[in-house]
């Protein structure tokens, strides 16, 4: 195992809107080593994108506020960096692939120039060399460099996502934040884009945080998995741990709702109820109103249970009980 | 059950509408102006056309809060009466323009083809003449008077509404609920007015609220340049036209009527802004 590269400690983010406060991220801690991929899994609105944007420090200034925690990147707490130094981190050290390729590109700039912009921001090169590099990047993601001067509206969704990826990789970032990079794409294109990301990541030994609600994507791409519910990590472990021995009732619910994951199942299970109202989270474990195994203790303080190795779970149940729950969930 | 849903929706809507201080101010101001114009004249000790030669050009004082005009008529009383004209003028021409704009817009947008081409080319010609110019000409054509002015104002302001409604319809008709209605053989009329109309009417409500204000201003401009409503009718613009000769010596003759217009239009615009924020789902969250 190499040194830890990214360490997020007890991160808290709050959104304020119309005098209502939304606890989007509720004390999340993440560790990531160089070259590894961490999957953040959870429902829409669980706070996954907010974590990524907090790491980039590109949360909307007015609405969002980081209220606590530290983000250490390569030995530096980037939350304490002055804004102008942070600009050098963004795009160069950390880059982000955005969810919706349709809107992530400026419609009035050629795709080449948009890649050129990030290259010239971080690399000291003249325009000619930069354009050359941007052309290389296009080719790297499988777009002919002749299309440099075309505008986003002339590309299909999958192609646009490739451009976004090229933009993110243009300065060889050490950390890549991929925010549902395939959600907006057709299934056939999804696989291509994922392969592309994986290939490029291996080539440059980039660390990656992959945000998704698609467990299939996680299975294909990730080393570690963090399951997020209502702004908290409810379960963390190696991919194999999570897939073969899910412990938290929510994780089990997620797997139960997937076709083909539960062997021998005739019908899919759904998690009953709706995600909690983020302006009024329930006391204790945020999942208890929907949890089939909820007990009174769930409303109190929730302990973190070590299951095996790095596999952790936040639940009041003992390890043995959880394992039983797990086998129960299967039967 | 359905009824309660509706009431909660409108309650919710009112709450959203009156959330900001500006739309609240607009709402209160407008309500105040309307109430004053409706009931104010009954409270006034003076008649609207009471000539009092003792009090010619009397400045604002205790007996005549806003002063008296060249014939000693009480300006406040005339303003309250005139407000009825101005408000009614604005409201009726804005509504008429909105209704015509929606009808033509929906028809053009829904039918497309030759009908659309015809309507839109006609609107192009129409709007080659800016609204106010058209108003001036129609007003000259129709002559003075309330009805003629309403027509002039309406005619001058149709093209904008048509354009906007058509744009809305074009965006809306691609959506699946229209296809669904067509697939079950809904009649064209039913689809246009039962399905399309409610979905395109919201932006029109905002525009119409604001255009009441601009209609009042335009009506006043028309009266000011000697068309539209004529003195001695106490319409606000006509009062301004009446008073402008005395600007040097009796400036209060033009100050108060103008202030009345400005406040009314301000209230309508504030309310229109509030409506936009309350209705536009894009800006809601």
């Amino acid at each position: 195992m190499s040194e830890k590269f990214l360490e997020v400690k007890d991160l808290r983010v709050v959104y304020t809107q119309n005098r209502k406060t939304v606890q989007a991220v509720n004390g999340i801690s993440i560790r990531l080593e160089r070259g590894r991929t961490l999957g953040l899994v959870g429902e829409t609105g669980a706070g996954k994108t907010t974590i990524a944007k907090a790491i980039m420090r590109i949360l909307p200034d007015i609405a969002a506020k980081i209220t606590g925690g530290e983000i250490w990147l390569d030995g530096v707490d980037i939350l304490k960096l002055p804004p102008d130094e942070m600009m050098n981190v963004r795009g160069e050290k950390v880059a982000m692939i955005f969810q919706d390729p349709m809107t992530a590109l400026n419609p009035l700039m050629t795709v080449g120039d948009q890649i050129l912009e990030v290259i010239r921001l971080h690399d000291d090169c003249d325009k000619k060399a930069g354009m050359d590099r941007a052309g290389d990047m296009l080719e790297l993601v499988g777009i002919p460099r002749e299309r440099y001067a075309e505008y986003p509206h002339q590309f299909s969704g999958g192609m646009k996502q490739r451009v976004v990826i090229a933009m993110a990789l243009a300065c060889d970032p050490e950390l890549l934040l991929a925010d549902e990079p395939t959600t907006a794409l057709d299934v056939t294109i999804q696989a291509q884009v994922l392969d592309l990301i994986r290939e490029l990541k291996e080539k440059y030994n980039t660390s990656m945080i992959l945000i998704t609600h698609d467990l299939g994507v996680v299975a294909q791409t990730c080393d570690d998995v963090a399951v997020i519910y209502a702004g908290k990590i409810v379960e963390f472990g190696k991919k194999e741990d999570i897939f073969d021995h899910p412990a938290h009732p929510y994780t089990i619910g997620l797997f139960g709702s997937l076709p083909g994951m539960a062997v021998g199942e005739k019908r899919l299970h759904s998690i009953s109820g709706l995600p909690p109202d983020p302006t009024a989270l329930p006391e204790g474990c945020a999942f208890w109103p929907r949890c089939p195994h909820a007990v009174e203790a769930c409303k109190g303080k929730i302990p973190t249970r070590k299951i095996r190795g790095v596999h952790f779970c936040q639940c009041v149940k003992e390890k043995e009980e959880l394992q039983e729950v797990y086998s129960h969930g299967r039967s | 059950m359905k009824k309660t849903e509706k009431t909660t929706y409108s309650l919710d809507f009112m709450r959203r509408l009156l959330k900001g201080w500006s739309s609240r101010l607009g709402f209160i101001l407008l309500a105040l102006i309307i109430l004053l114009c409706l009931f104010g004249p009954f409270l006034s000790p003076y008649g609207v056309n009471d000539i009092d030669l003792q009090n010619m050009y009397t400045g604002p004082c205790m007996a005549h809060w806003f002063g008296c005009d060249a014939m000693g008529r009480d300006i406040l009383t005339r303003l309250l009466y005139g407000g009825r004209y101005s408000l009614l003028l604005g409201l009726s021409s804005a509504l008429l323009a909105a209704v015509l704009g929606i009808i033509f817009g929906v028809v053009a947008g829904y039918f497309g083809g030759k009908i659309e081409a015809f309507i839109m080319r006609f609107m192009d010609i129409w709007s080659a003449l800016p609204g106010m110019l058209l108003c001036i000409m129609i007003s000259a054509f129709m002559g003075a008077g309330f009805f003629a002015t309403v027509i002039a104002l309406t005619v001058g302001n149709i093209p904008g509404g048509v354009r906007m409604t058509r744009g809305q319809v074009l965006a809306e008709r691609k959506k699946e609920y229209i296809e669904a209605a067509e697939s079950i053989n809904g009649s064209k009329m039913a689809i246009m007015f039962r399905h399309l109309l409610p979905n395109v009417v919201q932006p029109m409500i905002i525009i119409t609220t604001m255009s009441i204000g601009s209609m009042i201003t335009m009506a006043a401009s028309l009266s000011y340049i000697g068309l539209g409503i004529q003195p001695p009718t106490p319409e606000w613009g006509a009062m301004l036209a009446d008073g402008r000769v005395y600007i040097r010596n009796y400036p209060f003759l033009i100050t108060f009527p103008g202030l009345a217009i400005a406040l009314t239009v301000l209230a309508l615009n504030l309310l229109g802004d509030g409506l936009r924020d309350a209705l536009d789902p894009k800006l809601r969250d």
Partner: protein
Amino acid sequence: MGRYILKRLMTMIVILVCAAILVFTLMYFVPGDPARLQLGVDIPEAILQAKRHELGIDTPYIVQLGKFLYNAFLRFDFGYSWKYGVSVMEELIVRLPRTLMIGIPAMILNVLIGTVLGIYSAIHEGKWQDSITMVIAMVFVSAPNFWVALMFILLFALKLNWVPAFGIENLQSYLLPIICSALPGIAVNARQARSSMLEVVRADYITTARAKGQKDRVIVRKHMLPNAMMPIITGVAGGLCQLVAGSPVIETVFSIPGVGAYMLSGVNLRDRPVVCGCVVFFALFTSLVILIMDLSYAFLDPRIKAQYAKGR
């Protein structure tokens, strides 16, 4: 692109001709006998008849219309004023500079100050700078233009004596008309620019630009402004048309013998050549503004340019 412009110019001419027909027809059917209006009430029928012949209004509608269109569009001649007997075209040429002396500076103020204020306001969204700008803009959007003009005359000309109140004696006398014409446009543009900037701020590609590590100042200039420009241009063009349309009123308030005042005198005297001349002239201006607006869209937005190139 060239073909598109050509096509648009052709359409514009057709629209102008149609607008001219519309105006002519309106004025033709305006009640009242022009001959009687010129000469007075107690005039023998024979003299009236002669006058009608002289004015060319004893022929059928269609003949008069044809003659008007032919002269106006092929010979650029709108005929002679019925009241004053002066060539309308010559009078327009004399009066045009006075209207432009107000219109062009007002337009420039309109675009510059309005847009800058709007962007300034958007950048300071929710802070006091924003609130103050928007309150002032709201006041000037709401207050009737001609009344504001009267109030300014009262304050700056009559009370403070800084500028002349009426007429066109010297350059200073244009100052108030320019400011008063520009104010509502500035206010409207500021509001428009602010709201379209705010819409763009929330766009995903702005987040992308921030994620690249771009400086805020550059993001505003390079990514936000171009994308916010289209509604701003629409607003500016609308403001220009308002400026033209408002010229009869503003010129009346300040007693400026410009094109607007000319048109108004024509309307009041039922002087058809004058009205038709002025209105065709105004319509030409408006159409040109709209054409330039559409073309600048294409210049700004490659999507629209692609549409035009396809020859929509």
